[in-house]
């Protein structure tokens, strides 16, 4: 059971091995932090696309609610 404030995520073993490699060379403190930092960076690199998609979603939602 994960700790409070945490969620358990199932990842493919090959991704887990990559994270372990980062910990072994001292670039990350632990596996969970490695995945957290990876996802933060992944989201940051897609910031613009996320903003645009959210805008489209909001626009469609309001169009459907107020035709």
């Amino acid at each position, binding site marked *: 059971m994960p*700790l409070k404030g945490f969620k358990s995520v*199932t990842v*493919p*073993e090959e991704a*887990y091995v990559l994270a372990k490699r980062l910990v072994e060379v001292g*670039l990350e403190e632990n596996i*969970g932090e490695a995945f*957290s930092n*990876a996802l*933060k960076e992944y989201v940051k690199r897609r910031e613009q696309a996320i903003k645009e998609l959210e805008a489209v979603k909001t626009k469609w939602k309001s169009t459907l609610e107020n035709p």
Partner: protein
Amino acid sequence: MEAKAFYWFLKQGFKEDEINFNSHRVVDLVVRGHPYEIKKLIGQRVLCFTKNQLEIFKEINPTILVFDEKHMEPVAVVPFKDVQKEFKIEITGRTKSVGIPEEIFALAEKLVQLEIEPNISKAFANAMKEYIKNRKELIELREKFQREKVDTGG
């Protein structure tokens, strides 16, 4: 999902000491001697099993508790032998569980909601692939340094 399953069993009238969890066993939990496996619903009807699980579950026929993100109770409780009638089975490789802060998990959920990623697991796996790719040279340098340190005994 383990917590959801635990509370669901309590609600069904089972006692705490009858609910025996062990994620390192063949099945996730055994309750009054009966094996149960917890599965997360992916999309509308996909459940993932490893090749090994499919072989073993044919023999022991555990009950599959299917949970989704929204509900506290299982969306389906099915004997393994009937699981293919209701769900599409996908075979996955081996997996590992990782504890992730809730705020990061929410970011991954956003990627799925916006259809940038098909599911949470893929979001983290793809993020890790990209993260490693962007640090390839640095990792190789560190590994080289570590090898040299061992070779020189320092």
